[in-house]
């Protein structure tokens, strides 16, 4: 039995892993922003009255949600290469994670939009408010109470799933771990340290998102005191 912790291996690997952690944060940030930006139109298309809009989006979302992220990454990195589209490992990684994020975020956004009472849509239509103003100024601000906790979970999922990108050699933290193990031959210490760093990252994100979550609630509370419907943030009327 060999139970000894090699502190030299920890000291050797730590800076390399920190560099990988920064890359993981960058890749996940990119995927989160792209996923959120693309997720809104995808969610709206899925809620559309026209099946021409709805069906392709439903197919995309269900395919992304019902297949392993690892397989999606393989298709984008190795599958596209067969068609002559050779992507850099980083580009392929960000692309795969962004597509995955888009599908997952769009479902949260769709749920958030559906959480807003139907009367809001009807009232806006009756007042002749344009579609983009309706969505951007009336529906999305009110759905934040539902959306933010759901997105927190999705972002945590993105961070954890990004570890699989090391298999297509995207230079993030798990890939850095492989590099460290290749040099130090201490996989247990290295991967344990990687696990702690991932845990620190996800815990930090959860704590930060809690703060974001609190912000609109403060607005709601002031609304409640004034006897206003709690689902209506006051700032919407401008």
């Amino acid at each position, binding site marked *: 039995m060999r*139970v000894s912790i090699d502190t030299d291996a920890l000291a050797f690997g730590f800076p390399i892993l920190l560099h990988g952690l920064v890359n993981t944060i960058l890749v996940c940030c990119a995927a989160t922003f792209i996923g959120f930006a693309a997720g809104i139109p995808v969610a709206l298309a899925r809620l559309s009255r026209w099946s021409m809009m709805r069906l392709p989006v439903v197919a995309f979302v269900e395919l992304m949600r*019902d297949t*392993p992220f690892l397989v999606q990454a393989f298709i984008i990195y*190795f599958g596209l290469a*067969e068609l002559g589209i050779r992507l850099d490992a980083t580009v392929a990684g960000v692309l795969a994670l962004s597509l995955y994020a888009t599908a997952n975020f769009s479902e949260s956004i769709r749920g958030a939009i559906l959480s807003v009472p139907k009367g809001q849509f009807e009232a806006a239509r009756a007042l002749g408010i344009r579609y983009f103003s309706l969505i951007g100024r009336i529906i999305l601000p009110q759905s934040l109470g539902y959306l933010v906790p759901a997105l927190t979970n999705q972002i945590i999922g993105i961070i*954890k799933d990004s570890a*699989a990108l090391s298999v297509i050699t995207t230079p993030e933290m*798990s890939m850095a*771990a492989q590099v460290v193990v290749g040099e130090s031959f201490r996989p247990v210490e290295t991967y344990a340290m990687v696990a702690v760093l991932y*845990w620190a990252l996800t815990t930090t994100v959860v704590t930060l998102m809690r703060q974001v979550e609190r912000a609109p609630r403060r607005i709601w509370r002031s609304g409640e005191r004034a006897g206003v419907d709690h689902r209506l943030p006051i700032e919407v009327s401008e």
Partner: protein
Amino acid sequence: MSAEAQALMHGALFTLEASVVGAVFGIMIAVMIALLRQAALAPARWIAAAYVSFIRGTPLFVQILVVYFLLPGVGLDLSPLQSGMVALSLNSGAYISEMIRGALTAIPPGQVEAAQALAIPRRWIWLRIILPQVAVLIVPPLTVELAALIKGSALLSVVGVVELTRSAQQIIAVTFEPLGTWAKVAFLYFLMCFALGQLTRQLQRLKTTGLAV
């Protein structure tokens, strides 16, 4: 059926088996964790909470690798499949324990109070009143977890377990046709997870119409 199709079907079946086994062990771990979280002893509760937080806060990919490299170091000589199943079970145990926690809060406290008023022993309250209801409430989220396990088990390919993803890699090493093979693999995963998703929807509908519980 061609040899390739046969290998893929075999891999898909193996993925399904590994996921079910992972879920079964996961349920056992989850029940222990859920009981620990109810324990009177505070350190027991802390350990359970730390376990759940750590598993839910780290990638399954890293968990699989830690278990794979750690167990031989402490004298347990396990095959890649065995260590992979340990990682998968430990992982799903944490998630399922959270589902049990959710189900426990869904049971009205009035039931326990009524049972206590009737002087029913604590053991019976758990075995006859709480757990049977938890067992029903947990079924729809369990199907969601099983789908997550099917997708998560793809990561077992990294330590050399020949499930669906690994068998696809073996095929590609011979045929050099990644796109077609991965498309087939994605379709097989999709079939399994989509079918489970539909089952989840049906089960949730049953619950809302009051047939369950």
